């Protein structure tokens, strides 16, 4: 456990001492900010229209702002995850520092979990930016906080799964760009798989749609912890980290 933390600290240090972390945080913050203020503007305009028509349709912050925004974050995250994971192993392989880690009295799994955890923490920092926007809602409105918390839990689980896949891909190459591009491709694919379900109901289509990481987020977005979806994400995390470990091992046998 101590070793995991040592590796994790070092990775966080590397993220935050270079511009990478700040760039990601700023970009994520800007993009989400744009989404947020758009959503608010639409909400306000709709509200005024309704008042003018004399209707008193109940306006719901949770349903009309928080839920779609959380859905958006889960998609925006797909674009950022490759940038977080691409350097994890590729960089160490390129500079030869992997030789230091691999010859230190520390298990492969500790290295892997440490790195994955650091990536997850960086992602959490990005989510924290979005939380600042939501804090604004709490100041001027009165939304229910429980669905929001559950939504964030879902986002973390989803990111954990994708980050594990990204970590795995990063062990396959020395080239950060290749690792990033491949991870991006996989993330995108895991998103659009959902569309298959739109026109096809055969078993294969349902399996493909089931694999889509985004569909599993819907329940969390609604503020419900779904057992099946939670298991899906956790399985993906374990699989990703497991394959990373196998890859590190075979790296030694092959190279």
């Amino acid at each position, binding site marked *: 456990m101590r*070793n995991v933390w*040592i590796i994790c600290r*070092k990775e966080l*240090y*590397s993220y935050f*001492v*270079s511009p990478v972390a700040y760039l990601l945080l700023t970009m994520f913050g800007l993009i989400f900010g744009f989404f947020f203020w758009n959503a608010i503007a639409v909400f306000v305009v709709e509200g005024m229209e309704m008042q003018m028509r004399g209707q008193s349709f109940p306006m719901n912050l949770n349903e009309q702002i928080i839920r779609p925004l959380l859905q958006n974050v889960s998609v925006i995250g797909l674009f950022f995850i490759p940038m977080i994971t691409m350097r994890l192993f590729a960089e160490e392989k390129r*500079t*030869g*520092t*992997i*030789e*230091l*880690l*691999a*010859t*230190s*009295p*520390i*298990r492969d799994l500790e290295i892997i979990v440490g790195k994955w955890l650091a990536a997850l923490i960086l992602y959490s920092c990005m989510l924290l930016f979005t939380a600042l926007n939501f804090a604004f809602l709490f100041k001027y409105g009165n939304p229910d906080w429980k669905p929001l918390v559950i939504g964030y839990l879902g986002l973390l689980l989803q990111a954990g799964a994708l980050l594990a896949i990204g970590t795995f891909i990063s062990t396959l190459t020395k080239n950060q760009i290749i690792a990033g591009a491949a991870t991006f491709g996989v993330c995108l694919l895991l998103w659009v798989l959902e569309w298959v379900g739109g026109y096809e109901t055969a078993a294969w289509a349902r399996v493909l749609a089931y694999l889509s990481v985004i569909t599993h987020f819907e329940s969390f977005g609604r503020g419900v912890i779904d057992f099946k979806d939670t298991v899906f994400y956790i399985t993906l995390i374990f699989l990703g980290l497991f394959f990373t470990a196998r890859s590190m091992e075979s790296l*030694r*046998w092959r*190279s």
Partner: protein
Amino acid sequence: MIKVKELTKRYARTVAVDQISFEVAKGQIVGFLGPNGAGKTTTMRMLTCFLPPSAGTANVAGFDVLEQPLEVKKRIGYLPETPPIYPEMETTEYLKFVGKLKDLSGADLQKRVDYVCGRCAIADVKTRLLGKLSKGYRQRVGLAQAIIHNPDVLILDEPTAGLDPKQINETRDLIKSLAGDHTIILSTHILPEVEQTCEQVIIINKGKLVATDSVRNLQARARGAESVMVEVAGRNGNLEAPIVQHRLEQVSGVSRAVCKQQVDSRVFFEVESQKGRLVRGDLARAVVEAGWDLNELRPAAMSLEEIFLQLTQSEASAEAEKTPAQESKPEQPKLQESKS
């Protein structure tokens, strides 16, 4: 301390290390010698559990590299060919990170960091970014991280590459001072380095073991007949080289005297003696009795360089001819029993 038996590493296309066996006793410094591509780095990577061997066994500090890698890793310090540094870290930051990886903590860690900074002469770059250090300083930081946890076994892949002459000397002294408590294997292709620092040499070529022996034995073995450099000067200004040569060749045990050079009345000879004969005393007497001055008389030890070339070339030529008779080469790899 280190026992290697028929260690082999095959890559897809090449056999990088081919059935190497050797032993290193505790506290020794061993030079690992070989031309480029000989398989030095590959062997070291197997000893440090970075690469698994394809066949054979390696035992470091009593633990097998395949069966108990964690125990082995605890007891070794390793300086890879390229120092494994993180360019975005500061020197002390980095050393602390490595120290923690090697299970140091608290006051102990701080003490060791200060100590290795002093030993490796990097105290003046303590707060610099590693990515901005010069090659030599990176190498020193690499060495510092290898010794930070005071390991039993040090494995150094070309530790003096890229250092300036002063630092090379200091590093050699450092390595020598570490011997005794530590067992050290260092690879290099700089031969004087081996002569100066190592007690034992392991020479490999194209993945095969060519020789393992002590430096002195190796010199003696390759030398065969002793040769002596002699400088003779005439007392009254003129000296005929052929006369001196004739006189020298008369000394019993001398097989040949070759005049190398003549400057005014000084002549330089290289005298070869028959194998196993010590002729220096007789030579000196002969010169003096003939009424000449003896300016210099020194044994011309064959440098390791010549031995190295001789060994690696004879290997190559033997391979080229590939006759069955040459299976038993004159420089048969000789396993050296660990002392004591």
